[in-house]
Every structure is written in C-alpha cells, then in structure tokens.
C-alpha cells in the first residue's frame, strides 16, 4: 500500500487532498553538496519587494552538463542581480554573476565560477549548452536582459566569444542544426522591451508586476553558425522576424517529419508559434494549422515552459506547455495530422488552474517505463485585496508531481519535501547527477535558492541511458525508440525543454519489471534512421550517427 490521503499544504489541488506517493522520494541535497546560490532579482530587501520591475519576477535558468570533461555532471546557475538601470551604481565588480559548480568525486561541489570564466555578470535569464565550434567541449550561451553572451569552452576554461547584437530581453534558447550543415545553430526567444520605471496596477488598483501585454514585444532571433561558433543573425532572411510575440519557451524538433528541424515557441499571452522549415530554407508559422497555437477553447494562453514527450505511449511526440493561474497547463496530443488539446482527459487541467506553471519536465521518476511530469510553479501577480506584508512570499506556490500511466493519464501526487513547500518556482532541470540511472532535479526560484534534489525513489525497474551523438557532440533533436518485449518506447533528446533550462543531454529510459530490450532505433535530426542491437540493462550507451 503506497498511498495515503494527505492534505496539500499551500493549496494547488482543486479537490483539496492529494495522495502521497511514497514510491517517489526527491531528497534535497543542496546544502550537503555545497551548493549555495540564492537568486537575486534586484528588487528585494529581505523578502520585501522594492518596486515591481517585470524582469524581477521572471526568474532565471540553470544547466546541468559536464563542464570540465571529468565524466561528472556539473551545475551552472544563472544569476540576475541589480537591474540594468541600477548597474552604474553597483559597478561591474560588485555584480553577483552566474555560478558554475563543478562536482567532485565525493559528490560535493566546488565553485569554479571565476576560474572557469563563466561568471557572466549580465542580468541573467536563460542558458543553452552545446558544442558550437566542434572541438568536443561544451560551449555555453547565456541569454540576458541586455547583451547576450556566448562562451566557448576548451578543457576547463570558457572564453567569451563575439556574438551578434541581440534583442533587449532574450529568454529561452535552443541549439539545433536547422540547416543541416553539421554544426549547431541557435534559436533565441525574444520577450519584451523593458521600460524601467514603468508602474502597473492590478485590476484592483494595487501595485503589481506589469502584464507582458503592457510592454512592446521583441522578435525572436535565429542565428546561423558560420563555422567555429561564428553566428550570423538570419532572422529576417529566414522569415523568423515576421512575427513579434513574447517568447518564453522553445523546442527544436522535426514536427512535420520532413527531415528538417522546426521550432515550437511558447509565447506569453499570445498564440504560440510553430516555425515549419520550408524547402527554401525559410520558416512559416503553422501553429494555427496544426492546432498548437491556442488551447482547445481557442484561447491563447500565457506560455512559459514547454516539453516534448510521449506520455500516451503511441510512439509520437506530444507537447506540454505551462501557463498562468486560471489557465490550464496544456497538453497538445499529437494525432498525426495535427494536435488536439487533451489536457482535461489527461487529468492535467483542474490541478493547474490555481497555479502559475513555469519549469517542467517529462521524466520517468521511478524507472517504471511511464513518463511522469514534474512542475514548478510561482505566481506573477498577487491576489488582490489581501495584505501586502508578505512581500515576495505572496507569489509562492507549491511544485507538482504527476505520475503517468503510460497511456496518457496522470494523477497528481504529493511528494514530501518537494510539493509541500510553496516557493516562487521558475526553472526545473533534469539530469542523472549521481550517475545511478535515474533522473535528479534542479529547481530555481525567484529570490530564493537553487535546489538540488536527488531522486531516491523506489526503483520500479531498471534503466537505460542513451547518448545519441553526431559530429563529436550530442545530437540535439534525435528521437530514440527503445524496443522491448513489452512494446516500444520513444524519447527525444531536447536539452532545451522546460523553462530557461538546459537539461543533461541524455535520453533516459526506465525499464519496467519484466521488460527485455530487443533493439534500439534512432531517428536522427536530418531524417536518417539507424537500428542498433539491444544493449545490456542498467547501462549508459553512446550511439553515433553514421556519416
């Protein structure tokens, strides 16, 4: 008997009670491993708010990757600090900057921010990691409120490289070889033109953060890698500049199955975009045609995080987008010719209505072969007519975990230590931190600590970790199908999934009891298909795209 009735603290479940899923244990190990990072949004005095600049409530991202090539996963955390308009006072030296924590053999971390060269001190927003210069080392792109930054990695050192002038407020970023020339290109979401000093009030006339609809939008940017990490902005030529909507999430994937990667962009309060790659190299928005622009009620929603996965086990990939309070998060189920909003039937509608979803991950938490869902939440507007003494904490909301049944239905469960603590959650990043074959989590908060959660769930099966690679780097956008005697399971490699995050570039499979692997198939981003023999269970394997 694994379940008990347990009242959810902080409210998030419309029915008022959740089942505690004792099989799932997410244990916070932040302090014991030595991670000491607190996000500074630039408008806090203690927990009290000093003004309501919109950038301060949007939070920042994080990345899990092996920064120094020692085989251990490292943690890179994006920091904000003083708002750009206050920076002349702070001075560059006094800025907190991003932090790189290198994992040591004993599992603790060492702060290598300065020595690595990755202490970017812009007002940080998001991050993407990929090998853009083909030297086998990961490189790092940081999106900022202000100039973005590209850092080329070599051994343990990162050097800031030239990068085109970017939008005033960049958000999500995705590396992806969209033009098929074997190097990684880059899509960067553009959000808004910030207006320092702009003051907004809620419908009740109380000061609060501005709605994104109160500020001018900026366009997204598409950068083509001209080789060696030299990027050129090709947004106008490729058609991306045709739209201006406030982007917060982006996924690169071949949605139309033509061998050309497309981009799906979640927009904040405006219809989402699905940029379909055309034969002539331009992109056209087909989100309305394919049913991924708006929810099933025909309403555009406040898109934040976005993930791709196959929760219903029908071997095609569905989209899940997180949204604002009073909107459901939305599961766009792939039905072949397009997508349908299947959120209510999946059991994901009502639990999301009271909360504002941001970071999100499709992951098999207990290695039982079914995709589960983890979410972090946090409001962007205060409830009206209540005391304002709570400061930032008035925006806090609990995280959520949903267990999937592999057929497209989810049940929300309480996970002690993870879903019972209201915070202003933003990014959620997945990776196998301790190399034990399950996925661990990192979460970030506005004005709060980054938290590292070790997955100590009851193992309901074994695992397989696949690292698809091409040209000496992870093959972003590859789709791996694992065949077993119980059926096939499909998982994509999209480290950019979620909100402002860069997940460990691996494909993780849980292997339910009794499952025997019979083979692996890979659909590579350029449309090439390969088959591979069954590996041993509980292993990590690397598969290479044939040249």
């Amino acid at each position, binding site marked *: 008997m694994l379940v008990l009735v347990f009242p959810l603290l902080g409210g998030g479940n*419309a029915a008022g009670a959740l089942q505690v899923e004792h099989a799932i244990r997410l244990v916070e190990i932040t302090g014991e491993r030595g991670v000491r990072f607190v996000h500074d949004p630039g408008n806090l005095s203690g927990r009290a708010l000093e003004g309501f600049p919109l950038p301060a409530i949007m939070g920042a991202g994080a990345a899990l990757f092996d920064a120094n090539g020692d085989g251990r996963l490292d943690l890179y955390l994006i920091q904000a600090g003083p708002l750009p308009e206050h920076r002349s006072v702070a001075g560059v030296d006094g800025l907190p900057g991003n932090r790189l924590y290198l994992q040591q053999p004993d599992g603790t971390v060492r702060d290598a921010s300065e020595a690595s060269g990755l202490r970017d001190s812009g007002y940080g927003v998001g991050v993407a990691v990929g090998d853009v210069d083909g030297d086998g080392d990961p490189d790092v792109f940081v999106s900022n409120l202000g100039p973005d930054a590209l850092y080329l990695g070599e051994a343990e050192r990162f050097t800031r490289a030239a990068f085109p002038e970017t939008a005033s407020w960049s958000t999500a970023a995705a590396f992806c070889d969209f033009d098929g020339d074997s190097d990684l290109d880059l899509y960067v979401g553009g959000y808004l033109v910030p207006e320092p000093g702009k003051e907004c009030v809620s*419908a009740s006339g109380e000061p609060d953060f501005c709605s994104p609809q109160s500020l001018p939008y900026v366009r997204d940017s598409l950068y083509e890698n001209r080789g060696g990490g030299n990027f050129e902005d090709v947004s106008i030529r490729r058609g991306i500049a045709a739209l201006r909507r406030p982007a917060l999430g982006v996924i690169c994937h071949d949605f139309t199955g033509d061998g050309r990667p497309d981009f799906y962009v979640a927009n904040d309060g405006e219809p989402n975009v699905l940029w379909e790659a055309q034969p002539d190299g331009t992109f056209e928005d087909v989100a309305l*045609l394919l049913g991924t622009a708006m929810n099933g009620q025909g309403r555009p929603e406040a898109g934040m995080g976005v993930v791709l996965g196959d929760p219903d086990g029908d071997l095609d990939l569905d989209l899940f987008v997180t949204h604002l309070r009073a909107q459901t998060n939305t599961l766009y189920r792939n039905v072949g010719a397009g997508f349908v*909003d299947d959120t*209510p039937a999946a059991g994901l*509608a009502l639990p999301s209505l009271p909360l504002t979803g941001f970071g999100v991950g499709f992951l098999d938490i207990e290695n039982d072969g079914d995709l589960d869902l983890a979410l972090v939440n946090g409001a962007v507007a205060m409830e009206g007519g209540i005391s304002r003494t709570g400061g930032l904490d008035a925006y806090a909301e609990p995280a959520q975990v949903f267990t999937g049944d592999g057929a497209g239905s989810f049940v929300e469960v309480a996970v002690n230590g993870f879903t019972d603590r209201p915070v202003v959650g933003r990014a959620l990043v997945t990776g196998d931190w301790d190399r034990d074959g399950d996925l661990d989590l990192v979460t970030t908060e506005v004005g709060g600590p980054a938290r590292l959660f070790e997955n100590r769930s009851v193992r309901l099966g074994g695992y397989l970790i696949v690292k698809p690679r091409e040209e000496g780097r992870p093959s972003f956008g590859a789709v791996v199908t694992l065949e077993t005697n119980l059926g096939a399971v499909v998982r994509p490699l999209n480290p950019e999934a979620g909100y402002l995050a860069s997940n460990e570039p691996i494909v993780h499979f849980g292997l339910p009891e009794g499952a025997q692997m019979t083979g692996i198939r890979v659909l590579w981003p350029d449309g090439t298909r390969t088959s591979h023999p069954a590996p041993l269970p509980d292993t990590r394997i690397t598969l290479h795209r044939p040249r």
Partner: protein
Amino acid sequence: MSASVLANLLGSALAAGQAPLPAVDRSAMEPQVARLLADVEAGLRDRIEAPEAWLAYGETLHAHGLVRPAATAYREAALRTEPGSQLALSAGYLLAHAVRGSAPGEARAALEGVLRRHPGYAPAHVLHGELLEETGDRAGAAAAFEAALLVTPGAPLALFRLGQMRLLAGNPDDAIPLLEQALAAEPDAGAVRSELARAWTLAGDRERAGATLAEGGDAGLPGIEDPIHFRMSSRDVSSPRLLARAREARTEGDLETARSRYAELSEIRPRDAVVLAEYGAVLDALGQFGAAERRLGDAVALDPDSFLARLALGLLHLRAGDLPGAEFHLRRATAARPDSGAAHRALGDALLRQRRVDEALAALKEASRLDPADGSARVLSAAALAELGRFGEAWEAVREARDRGATVPEPFLAALRARSPEPSRS
C-alpha cells in the same frame, strides 16, 4: 427550493442570516478604487439583507479582479434570493464564473442549480459545458453545448464549442459544418477561424486549412478575436474589420476616412506596429508630417524591421532635407525588404543628394532591376551618370525613363544638353 437548500447546493460554508462582509484589504489600492469599493460596501451595510446589494457588491469586487471576496458576496446574494428569480440566476451564474478555477465542483453545482430553474438560459449551458470539459467529461460537455443550441439555435459560441468537442472526439468531418456555421455568424472571430482551419488539417486537407486562415487576413492574430473576449467587450466593432475598412479607404484615396479609421484602430491596438506604420503613412500623405513622424517613430520602436515605417520615415526625412536620417531609415527598409524597388530608389535618391554618386548609382541600378517598369529610378540614374560625366549612358537612361512614361525635368535636360548633345532617336 429553500434558501438553505440553495446554500448547500452552492457549497456555501456560511450559514444563512447576517454575514460578515468579505475581508478586503484596501490599503494598497489606488484611492479611486478604494473609494469606490468603500462606497459600495457602505451601500451594502445599509441594506445588508438585500440580495441585489450583495450582488452589486460582488460584481464590483469581481470587476476589480477580487474574485475570492466576490464569490463570497455572490453566495450571500444567493442565500437571500427567491429561488427561480432573475437575481438567483445572476448570483448562481456569476458565482460559477468566480469559482470555476478554484472550486470547480461548487461552480458546477451552482450552474446546475441555475439550469434547473432557468433551462432556457443558454450562457449557463455553455459555461456548464466548459466546466464539464475541463474535468474530461467530453460527452457531458457536448450535451451541454447541444442544450445551448436547442435553446438558442445558431448561437455561435455553442456551435464553436460543440465543434471543438467533435474535433476532440476525432471527428473533424462532424466539426467542420458546426465551425463553418459559427464562423458565418462571427466572421471576425479568429479563434473560430483557427479551429476551422485545424479541423481541415485534421481532416487531411491542409490546403483548405491554409485558405481558411488566409481568408481571415489579419485574423491570424486570434488573441484579439477571442469570441469570449468580444462577448464581454463593450466594443461593437472588431479591429480586423476596422483595419480592412481603413485599408480600403486608403486604397481608394479617401485619406480623411482612412485617417479617422486608423486613429480609432491605434487606440484599440496601440502596440501594433503595422497599424501605426500605415497610420503614419496616411498622415504623411495628408501632409501632417509631425504627427506622421510620431506614429512612424512609435512603429519602428515596436518593430525596428518594419519595412513600411522605415520607408515612410525615410521619405519623410528625404523631403525634409535630412539626408543622413533618410539614408538611415532607407537602409533599414532595404534590409527588411531587399526586393523592394521603391526602397532602393529612395535610397539612391538620398545618396545622390549627398553626392555619393557611385553608391547612389548602385542603389538605383538595383531599383531598376527590381522594378523594370519604374521610370523614376531611370531619371535619377541619368542624373547620377551625368554627375560622373558618363553622358552617353545618362542619355540612355533618359530614353529608358521616357519609354516608361516618366517625366524628366527640363532644367536637367538643358544642363545635360549643354554638356553633351542629345543623341538622335535613330
């Protein structure tokens, strides 16, 4: 139905009788909002047993986004109404709206109470259907939308929602006629149009889907055309329709009418760079240069790649003699639309006036290549070639300009003749 039964039905935690007012902290509110709420609250205190006073208080709170206390007020109103009365209907319906996200069970119960007494109220059927759909009860939702259509045949929202249910059930062929009917009733509803396009896609006819979207023109921005939004909006005209009318007036040369329509449109869509750019172009054509520059400046602030705004600003600066300013905007215009002959021609003009003749000539050649029928670019080319002393080519450009119906200024021709005789036509 007794009041206490209704209270139970509505899930109220409060007992009947005099209830405390819902707690609302007004300390951080704007003074006028706080005053308004205080006045309505005072009115309620004077008539604490009057359901209409509770309803008015609830609506005032609701209108200011204070949903939780508004729900409390609606519950109190419901407790005090005669079952079956119009007030009971309003209280139940508004309560369902207020709590649909936080307490969906209570919302459903409230609506079901309303519908038992007022089965002819179509909006309640529609909201009931939406609530059922959110719980995954698609069959129940479809039945509710069908009930709304029985009450109000042809109700676009009910048609739209029922069409969506058919789509979700995997029956695009059943959905299409419903969505077509909804769109016929609400041709500006981008959400309906996009759902119809999606239905065509799911039916395997992507070409038809694309055509459906294209027929909507700017309804490709469906956020503005959300039918729910329109139902709740006091505006009686949709912005795409206004835009179409403004463009029509502009095309027909009725600039005053166009100006007034763009002015109205810019109020509705103040952050729409396309609207601002077109508005600026109309003002420019009317000779209202200051106003035009402001609108066009707003447009490029919103969309630095706006071709129309850049071109119009470039021409405006060109006329004003601000040649570097003109060049700046016209270069941005040619970058945004490298295939625009007009932009290259204007850029050539700006460069020629700055005596940067070689650059000007290159821009004008590009203009002529892009727009072979453009005689004006040839006139300017002739001037540039004459500046360079390439008189034969200048005369050739003059001939090409004349062949295209362009007028070549007589003083220029006289100056050219003074340097080089005009070649004979033969």
